[in-house]
């Protein structure tokens, strides 16, 4: 029974990957073909090369892209649930399971936000990121479905890890937005945005958005760290031990605290704030990759 569910889960994940790939192609098609070269060069304006975006033309591709995203989400959800059923615990007992659940949360957050805002310009990056995450997970991180090791058997597995997954997802989203800010800032200082990026909001909006995301999720990250400390107290006999994962969680916390202070109290904006935001987000990524794969200490559950 256990292996049956694990097989079903894998079929779901592979199908989801195929569907996300279609979604990615559709997004790329939409973005590429919406760019319209001027039909008649407007010589009087002295500008021959201004391209415009016409999303009317690619509306069908956009719809397919979003529909595939939703289908991919459903398949991925099936895969995650089947994985959970196969070993009868929440599907984040190792790095593979953590990755597929994280990809699910990331897609879900995008689709939820899409109901309210027109974020389809992000779809290209989201589908690519999800595809890469799932690809890495299933090729490099895959481990057979297995019961949890004793230290993970706790209610805190649900609380601590859910808080960490959500915080991580939002931190990375803030990083993407800050990265977009820096790229567009660079482009705008040298003439202007490329046509396919005109749909992305203005620099001010991006700047505000990355701050809002961080301010929104910082309390949750604080909670994730504290929940981890409470769990560590009951599992390992101390609530804080400077284990590499704990150390990097602390560094991430300090980096975002510095970011918030720099923004709110000192008034950093724009480029400097974006760099600091990316720096803080990188500490989170480093923690995820380095400590899970190469690190030592008590948090190595990747099974690699």
């Amino acid at each position, binding site marked *: 029974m256990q292996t049956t569910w694990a097989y079903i889960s894998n079929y779901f994940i592979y199908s989801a990957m195929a569907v996300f790939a279609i979604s990615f192609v559709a997004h790329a098609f939409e973005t590429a073909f919406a760019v319209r070269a001027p039909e008649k060069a407007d010589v009087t304006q002295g500008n021959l090369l201004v391209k415009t975006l016409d999303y009317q033309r690619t509306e069908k591709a956009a719809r397919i892209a979003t529909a595939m995203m939703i289908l991919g989400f459903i398949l991925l959800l099936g895969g995650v649930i089947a994985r959970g059923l196969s070993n009868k615990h929440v599907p984040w007992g190792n790095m593979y399971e953590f990755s597929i659940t994280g990809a699910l949360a990331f897609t879900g957050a995008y689709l939820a936000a899409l109901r309210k805002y027109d974020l389809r310009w992000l779809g290209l990056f989201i589908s690519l990121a999800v595809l890469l995450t799932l690809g890495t997970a299933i090729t490099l991180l895959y481990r057979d479905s297995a019961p949890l090791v*004793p230290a993970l058997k706790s209610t805190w597995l649900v609380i601590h890890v859910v808080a960490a997954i959500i915080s991580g997802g939002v931190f990375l989203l803030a990083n993407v937005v800050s990265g977009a800010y820096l790229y567009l800032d660079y482009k705008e200082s040298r003439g202007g945005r490329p046509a396919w990026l005109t749909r992305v909001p203005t620099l001010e909006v991006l700047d505000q958005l990355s701050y809002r995301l961080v301010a929104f999720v910082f309390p949750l990250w604080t909670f994730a760290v504290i929940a981890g400390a409470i769990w560590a107290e009951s599992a390992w006999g101390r609530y804080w031990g400077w284990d590499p994962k704990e*150390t990097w969680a602390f*560094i991430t916390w300090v980096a975002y605290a510095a970011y918030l202070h720099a923004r709110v109290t*000192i008034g950093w904006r724009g480029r400097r704030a974006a760099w600091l935001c990316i720096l803080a987000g990188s500490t989170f990524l480093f923690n995820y990759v380095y400590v899970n794969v190469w690190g030592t200490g008590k948090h190595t559950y990747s099974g690699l």
Partner: protein
Amino acid sequence: MSEKIEVPELGAVGLARYLWRQITSMRTALILLMMMGIAAIPGSLIPQRITNAIAVRDLYDSNPNLARWYDRFYLFDVYGSPWFSAIYILLFISLIGCVLPRTLEHYKAMKAQPPATPRNLSRLEHHQEFKVDDAALERAASWFAKNRFRIKRVEDSISAEKGYLRETGNLLFHLSLILILVGVSFGALFGMRGEAIINVGERFINVATTYDTLSFGKLTSEKSLQPFEVKLDRFNATYNPATNAPIDYKAWVTVTENGISRKQILKVNQPLTFGNTRVYLQANGYSPVVTVRDSRGNVALQGPVPFLPQDANLRSIGAIKVPDADPPVGFVANFVPTNQRTSGQGAISVFPELLDPKLLFSVWQGDLGLNSGVPQSVYRLDTDKLRKIGLGSVKPGETFTYPEGSITLETVVPWVNLQVVRDPGKTYALWGGIVAVLGLLSSLYGRRRRIWIRKVGDSVEVAGLAKNEAPGLQAEIQAFVAAVKGDK
């Protein structure tokens, strides 16, 4: 944020004031905060004594020069090093210097009434003007009361303010960090931690001599150990047959406290609690139970000898030291719970449970050096001055005979490593953590805003102001205006 650096007046008071202003400035705090983040990095890359003492020793063996240099800069003890301490102490001084004056200020602001309505409301945001009846101000006042605004009413105008919780939360958050630091220090000064290996069937008594390792905080001592006993009745470890990974560790214990005994289960996420002291199930392994007879046939040693696991399949090493035998002998031994039959030599275990246990050893004769005063590992035998007199292996029930005696493997019992921790500061740290999250929530989600209303003739003017660019005031003012108009 100081635009120009003030030149300090000469004299101690002036200098102190200057330093204080520098250290409590936001810029200094920010630099210290970033420094603390950076200072924490080396401790995650270089092995630390508190988390991985063995790796530190290995580095000393493989690269003593580098290790000595590391040690010179406290790189094996980053989080207790003078430079790390200096950063966080300065940071906390800066934090206190920043937060205390703000707390006083905030307290005064909370007691004071909101500022009076500005004369010219039309210059402010969200300004609007509309005709109303005479009861408009009353409706406004009751709307403010219902929505818990603090108000100041002067003649024909009301000034209302809400959202003090934002600053309250901000201050509480910073004060809670101090509470966490107090909790951590309290635990370090008055806490204790120790470890003891207990075989199944044995009793752990909470006195200093029972422990294998034991350390106390600076302001406490052995006298503070709480009296209790834990008898290990049974221990069971189950492993996944496919991956050999552990599934469950479970210990059945009899706990005696204040003369009363009770049965309890001890598991990895389920420690035993005695007030501030908790007992954790931390590791486990096997103790071969052996009987060693000497050349005259006397029993020189009988009982379980704990072996130290070396890998996930619990291949374990150990030393059986028999100084009382005639002549004294010692065994350098390997124990495997599930012996790999295919390999001709060497000890390899293929599963961590006792499926096919085997004890493999070499026998050594001579002075074991136990009375020399030099501390020895119980798991290792120093064979430099000993003579090898035999090489053998036994399974449970078997006896191996060598010229000067014999060894019998009677059975094998599991042992568990109990970790005993007393941390009287953790409750403070926990409360600090809870307050920190609550404070953050209200400081990052809270919105401080003001709304004014003034009656001029038969119409009113309304305006609002949100601090920190907080969104949502527009909608709130619309609701307010609707209430003032009386359209429900």
